[in-house]
């Protein structure tokens, strides 16, 4: 994702809340400290379909915002 972002492609990484710090560290190590992150509640493993849907809704809102920010 860092490489795609460096090449000017709109990118974002989805991570759950406990992995936010790791994701930020990795983005910085990859040379893109401002890499957009879509943060969803934890956990995802073993989640029911309803929970997965709610995670997707949370991610969708952030994704739209990222796209709007890029267009501006």
């Amino acid at each position, binding site marked *: 994702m860092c490489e795609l972002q460096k090449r000017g492609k709109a990118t974002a990484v989805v991570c759950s809340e*406990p*992995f936010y*710090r*790791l994701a930020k*560290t*990795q983005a910085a*190590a990859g040379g893109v400290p401002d890499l957009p992150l879509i943060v969803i509640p934890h956990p995802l493993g073993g989640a029911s379909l309803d929970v997965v849907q709610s995670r997707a809704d949370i991610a969708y809102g952030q994704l739209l915002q990222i796209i709007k920010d890029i267009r501006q």
Partner: protein
Amino acid sequence: MTNQNRPIEQLPCIEAPDDIEAAYAFCEQSGFGDGLPIIPPTVERVERMLMFCDRPRNEPIMTVAPGYGEATPLRIAANAVMAGCRPEYFPIVMLSMEAMGDEAYNLYGVQATTHPCTPLIIVNGPVGRELEINSGYRAFGAGPRSNASIGRAVHLCLLNIGGAKPGAGDMATAGTPAKYSYCAAENEAESPWEPFNIEEGFPPGSTTVTVVAAEGPHNVNDHESTSAEGILKTMAGTVAITAPIMPTMRRAR
């Protein structure tokens, strides 16, 4: 004079107190180390360590995930001093780091995973015996300086060079005490099998270091079986709950 061969004083260094307690406090405040006391890595001590290294002291031999810090002999030597290594242990520490730089080892995965695995260093061959790396009773600790400090040096490198900080670079949910230090030699003299490095195709008499992302040790204990089937059931039952990741190896030059 190239940058690779400059005296340590002329390379980027951190000013820190060399008094034992002050250095320990400095590490705690600066976020270095594993929480245990350290030997202050003064220029003189690091120089003594580097006497056992024939590589350019400031040339990276690998990068350490997840922070991708450059592991130079100088930095590795500083961590080896902090861990309490004797200078003659340093080649084993260097080999361990080099082995973890192999892409097949997947150091990022080992460092960042939620699983409680950590590099286990297994030494084969004559150098391990010369250094008295324990392969017998209580080989995984605690006790001998060689096992303790070699394993600790590697793990300090993972923390200090690689940035494997809890919750930021290291996501191990519970971790393992093996993350402090995890090093032993194979008990070649008493094993009914060929030494592991010979089995893997290295020549007889060679010294090798194998790094395996492993959980803490797990005993295989059977006091009751009187048949091969019984012993095999115990072995299988134990193996079924452990899952080491693929090892990578390096031979001493």
